[in-house]
């Protein structure tokens, strides 16, 4: 089937695409909400610290699929909202802090501080539902994990 389409319609469509693509991002920029969690991974059944609570079953299964520890307990959970080009600092414990900075098209820069010292800097564009986990060994063959997961709106 041959179809006659006027050039003007194609030009109009191209202008519309250019407008959508090139329009200032400030007009559509939005905040991103994250859940930040400090988690303790262990093979022990019950932690000595009564403030620790067992992590939800779904997250536990995910962590068990990746890490070797049998049990995971939440030390701290916080919700962080990061606006365009904004930098947010979150205190996860007396020794652990994270800094999240929105970098526009480059995603986010996440900095991990241990006792005030910069330990790790990661740049990440978060795909759908994916979490960033910064982790390391702890004493007695346990582990600490800082989970940063974007929350869907």
């Amino acid at each position, binding site marked *: *089937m*041959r*179809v*006659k*389409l*006027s050039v003007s*319609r*194609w030009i*109009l*469509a*191209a202008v*519309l*695409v250019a407008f*959508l*693509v090139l329009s200032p*991002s*400030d007009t*559509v*920029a*939005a*905040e*991103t909400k994250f859940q930040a969690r400090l988690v303790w991974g262990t093979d022990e059944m019950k932690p000595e610290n009564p403030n620790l609570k067992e992590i939800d079953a779904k997250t536990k299964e*995910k962590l068990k*699929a*990746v890490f070797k520890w049998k049990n995971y307990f939440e030390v701290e959970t916080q919700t962080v909202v*990061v606006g*365009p080009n904004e930098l947010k600092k979150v205190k996860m414990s007396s020794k652990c802090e994270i800094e999240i900075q*929105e970098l*526009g*098209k*480059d*995603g986010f*820069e996440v900095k*991990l501080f*241990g*006792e005030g*010292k910069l*330990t*790790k*800097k*990661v*740049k*990440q*564009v*978060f*795909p*759908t*539902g*994916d*979490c*960033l*986990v*910064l*982790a*390391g*060994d702890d004493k007695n063959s346990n582990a600490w994990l800082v989970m940063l997961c*974007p929350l*869907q*709106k």
Partner: protein
Amino acid sequence: MNTDQILKLQAYLDNEVSSGEARRIANWLSRDAEALQLFQELKEIKAAMAENELTVSVPESRDFYWSKIQRGIESAPAARPTVAPWWFRIGLPFAAALATLAVLMSVTTFDLPSLRLRSAVYEIDGSGSDDGSITFHSQSEGMTVVWIPSGQY
């Protein structure tokens, strides 16, 4: 007799070999009864095909035959372009524009966190990889893990 030898015989029959090769094949045929028999059969088949090709005669004269075809072409109704319905003529450019936009969005991260969350594009900055940390991504668990060795914190 192998396929190569059979093909050589066929080429010899069709005069497609060099004079030196032709002499070698002729010499071979004088010594090999099986090859000679096959050569004779191929020769007979070739002769039968050449002599028995059907000739088709046209009842009219050559000029009249071709002028009839020309008149047929000229009198045939000219193919008219199909006019698409109005919604198709208007909708197609916009559909193409939206498809272009969708492709751009799939490969580009905008300054819009909500769009970025839907994007499949992600990256891990390798900064600090010299510090001994290990980064890996678990597609099934939707998790990017940065494992920091104990000496770093």
